[in-house]
Each structure stands twice: as structure tokens, then as C-alpha cells.
């Protein structure tokens, strides 16, 4: 069966600095893959290459078997590729509900309408509210995003990605910046995501990784260091060495 997302031989350099070296990656339908690696390994860069924010020097990106290497970021989103950003990228001056309605409107073409009021299409509002319900954000629906605590903003970030009804979802450190008292909200959401969606999650927190991932890719200095199941990665001495001083103690704890 065609993979939901496939990356072949992806390369990217900034002058002499190679931030992506010959990266191969496959996400099957319903994948639950974590992307880990030390700081500066190029994890976010890889997501940027996949989503089209950056153009690769060479290599291909395939979405459901279709070559999207030359398409724009927006076009990839329309074809079912959604992402969250490491630092929230929300519409801070708008209400949570409007954030969602706009996302849905862009997805189903409603935003091409210059004439009918935004509130007229109740299906859009209903769907937005459904998304908010599933993330327990309904009470915040009419609050401006910038008035919410960071943890709840992070949930809105995920809600937007989900409202795109993606087939492939790239989560860039979804719990980053969230106080540990609230991070379980995020993690519950991630754990309960639609099993049909292929998910790649960048994470530093090994608790999250081992709870969520069925497959792990380790990225070091822009190249794929190794791949495998959580058990294999846990047992891998070289992975621990690479993480020594960073997450090493956490890996050791799970080992």
C-alpha cells in the first residue's frame, strides 16, 4: 500500500552548512512515529522541508504517492498535510472559534465567498465547535487567543491542525513550553488522535515518545542516525551515547 508520506534522499544546505543529508523516511497510514535527536539535529528543518517552507537542494517528497516536491506550502496543506509549529502560530487577535472557523473555511473553500456573512454557514460553526469539544476548549471558544494561558493556546494550535482534516500530521514538540501541570492535556489529545492519520511527532520528552510512538527515527546532524521500534532504540548503545549529557539519563531510566 502507498505510504501516506515518503521522503527520499532529501538534502538541504545553507552554504557550507548541510542541515539535511540524504534523509529517507516513510510514514505509513496510521503511523505513529517519533523524530528524536539532540538539539540542532535538524528536526524542525526536516519538517520545514516536508511542508514546503524550505526547498530542498535535492530529493523528493511524496504525499500519498504523489510527488509534491515542487508544490507550494499551501498546496501541500490542501492535499492533506498539516503541521503544528514549535512556537505557536495562531491568530492571536481573534477568538478561538474564529481561528477554527477560518481554518475550516480555507479547507472547504468557504473563504472564497465575499458575499455571505461568515456566520451564515452553520455547518462550519458546528464543525469548529465539535473540534473544540473534543479538545475541551468549548468554554474558551469566545476568548481571544492571546488571553489564554500558553497551555490552552497550544491546544488551539493542535485544534487548527486537526481542523484541516489532514491525512498526515506533523507535530513539532506539541508539549513544548507547556507547564508540566497542563502537559497531560496535550498528551491525552495526541494519544486519542484518529488512528487513520499518519503522525510524525518531534519530541524531546522521552516519556511522551515511549508512550506514544510505535516507530522512532533518530536524527543527528541532519542525517538519519538509526530507526527502529522503541524497544530497539532503548537498547541501542550508540543512541545513548549520542544523547549523553542531554536526555541520556532519561533513556537510561527506560532501559
Amino acid at each position, binding site marked *: 500500500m502507498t505510504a501516506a508520506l515518503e521522503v527520499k534522499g532529501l538534502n538541504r544546505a545553507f552554504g557550507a552548512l548541510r542541515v539535511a543529508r540524504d534523509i529517507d523516511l516513510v510514514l505509513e497510514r496510521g503511523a505513529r512515529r517519533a523524530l528524536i535527536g539532540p538539539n540542532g539535529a535538524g528536526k524542525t528543518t526536516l519538517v520545514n522541508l516536508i511542508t514546503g517552507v524550505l526547498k530542498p537542494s535535492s530529493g523528493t517528497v511524496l504525499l500519498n504517492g504523489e510527488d509534491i516536491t515542487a508544490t507550494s506550502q499551501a498546496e501541500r496543506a490542501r492535499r492533506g498535510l498539516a503541521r503544528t509549529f514549535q512556537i505557536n502560530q495562531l491568530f492571536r487577535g481573534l477568538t478561538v472559534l474564529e481561528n477554527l472557523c477560518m481554518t475550516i473555511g480555507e479547507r472547504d473553500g468557504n473563504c472564497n465567498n465575499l458575499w455571505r456573512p461568515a456566520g451564515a454557514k452553520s455547518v462550519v460553526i458546528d464543525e469548529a465547535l465539535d473540534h473544540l469539544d473534543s479538545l475541551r476548549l468549548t468554554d474558551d471558544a*469566545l476568548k481571544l487567543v492571546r488571553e489564554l494561558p500558553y497551555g490552552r493556546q497550544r491546544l488551539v494550535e493542535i485544534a487548527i491542525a486537526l481542523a484541516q482534516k489532514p491525512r498526515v500530521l506533523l507535530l513539532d514538540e506539541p508539549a513544548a513550553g507547556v507547564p508540566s501541570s497542563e502537559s497531560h492535556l496535550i498528551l491525552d489529545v495526541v494519544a486519542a488522535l484518529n488512528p487513520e492519520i499518519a503522525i510524525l511527532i518531534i519530541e524531546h520528552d522521552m516519556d511522551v515518545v515511549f508512550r506514544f510512538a510505535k516507530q522512532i527515527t533518530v536524527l543527528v546532524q541532519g542525517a538519519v542516525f538509526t530507526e527502529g521500534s522503541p524497544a530497539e532504540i532503548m537498547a541501542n548503545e550508540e543512541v545513548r551515547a549520542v544523547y549523553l549529557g542531554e536526555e541520556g539519563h532519561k533513556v537510561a531510566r527506560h532501559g
Partner: protein
Amino acid sequence: MGVSNSKSATAGDAARARAAEYLLSRHRFRWAEALPWLVAIAAFFVFPERMTFGSQVLIAVMFALSLDLILGYAGIVTLGHAAFFGIGAYTVGLAAARLGWSEPITGLFAAAILAGLAGLISGWFLLRYRGLTLLMLTLATAIMLQETGNLRSDISGGYDGLPGLSFDPLLGRFDYDLYGHTYFIYALVVLGIIFYFVRRIVYSPFGQALTGIRENVRRMHAIGSPVHRRLVTVYTIAAAIAGVAGALFTQTNAYVTLTVFDFDNSAKVMVMLILGGTGRLYGAFVGATVYMVMEDYFSKLSPTFWQFGIGLLLVLVVLFARRGVLGLIESAGASLAKRKKP
């Protein structure tokens, strides 16, 4: 997802209903929106001898409204908006002076089409850029347009202007009168129609998308919004409206010169918008009216004094009242509401 008892179920439903109601009712007319129109009609009766000036105020409001679509809602800063005003003004002027076409209402449509076309073409190329680059590109294109007019001053009348323009009576019956009464009502009706369209656009899903582009264009790309297409669309519409404002200018003044393309005009309309408050439908009304009235009063007293005053006002607005008069009113309203709470 877990057991929910009946109490939380109804609470959840209530929240949903409230949320839906908010969105559904945002676009409904509020009584306060009748205010600017009532003021305009009142002005007609209270200051009947100032109606030629009154028409100019209405034209300025329309011009500022067109810029608000681009600047206030889409968040795009340009320095060449006067170009579209000028194209509209000259469409009507040249048609009357060189082609003998002096029917005013078709003139408006022609101006809208030509100015809109200019917006479409220039927008398609230029809206790929931002910041200083866009400022310079839009400024340079506006100046080049002006220089072209100057080059063929035999056609355009140059800076002396197109001579002896006259226009047919409106709808075949209402003719120009010395006090400018007919034209004031004409301008008011046109402004009303245009405002109706702008209001619908602003409250539509498209208008929402524009706000999204202004708030976070990175996010818009990431959710699949065709940003460039949206911007070119709104730019074209804004250009067409500016063109209508220019056309009205020529008709109400029976005169047009190349100064309509001046950078001064592009700057003036930006000042008007900032004064009133960007991204708020009525900012154009407040800002343009306040500016025009002040300019009329102070520049007669002393042009130098006026220039100093407007400069000072700009500085003060940017430092202390960034969201303009309407922004100040909103803040005042919000703090009053807070104080009312026990």
C-alpha cells in the same frame, strides 16, 4: 470520551449555543451604525452653504475606506494608492474632455473598471513583495504613472489640468447647482452603495481570511490559504473603489490635474486612516472627516501652522493612540465596562 452527567451536558450545550450566536450575529446592523449617515444628512441641512466641501469629505471617506481594505484588513502597507484614485479621476476627465463622454454614472463604472484592472495587474506582480521593497515598488509605479501623464501633457493637461469639463445631469434630471447640493447627495448615495459592498466583504469568510493574513501569514500558508490570490483580489477591489472616489473628484470639481497622483495624496489618506483607526469599518469615516475639517480650518489660518499641527498629531497618535480615535473610544468603553462590574 468519558462519562458526562446531564449538568455538564447542558452547560456544554449552552456554551456551544453562545458561541454560535456570537458568530451568527456579528454581521447584523447595530443602531450606532446609522450615526455617520445621520450626521451626513444633518450636515446637509445645518451647513447648506458648505456642501461642495461636504462632497470632498465624502470622497475622502471613500478613498480612505478603499485603503482600509488593504491596510487595515489585509495588513499590506503601500505608498502608491493615489495611483488608483488618479486613474479613476483621469478616466472620467479624459472621457469628458477628449471623447465627449460626459454621462456621470457610466463614468463611475468606467473608472472602477480601469482602476480595478490597474490594481489587478500591478497587484499580481507587486504583492509578492513586502516591507521596504513593496513600499518602493508601489511608490515608483505611482510616480511613473504621473510622469507618463506629464510626458503627454498635451493629452492629460499636465499640472495645469484638463480644461473645461462639464457633465450631464444625473439620471437625466438632476443638474449641477452652485451650492453643490445635487452632487453631495450623489456622492452620499454612491458612498452608501460602496459601503454596503465593503461591509459585506469585511464580514464574509473572505474578509475573515484577510484578517488571518494580517494576523499571521505563516499560519495562513500552513493551513492552505491561497494568500497571493486573496491579496490580489482585495487589492483589485480596493483599487476599483479608489477609482470611483477619483471619478467623483473630477465630477464634483469639474477639474482634474496630475496632482491627484502626488505621493502627498497617498500619505494623506494613510494619515486619515490612522487617525480614525485601521481595520475598523468606520475608521475611514471618522478619520477622513476629522482630517478634512481640520485641514479646511487650519490651513486657511496658516498653512505652515497646519503642517506642523498634522505632523505633531501624527507623532502623538503613533506614540499614544496607535489605534486611532475609534481605538480610544473602544478602550474607554472597555474600561467603563470594567468599572461597572461590582
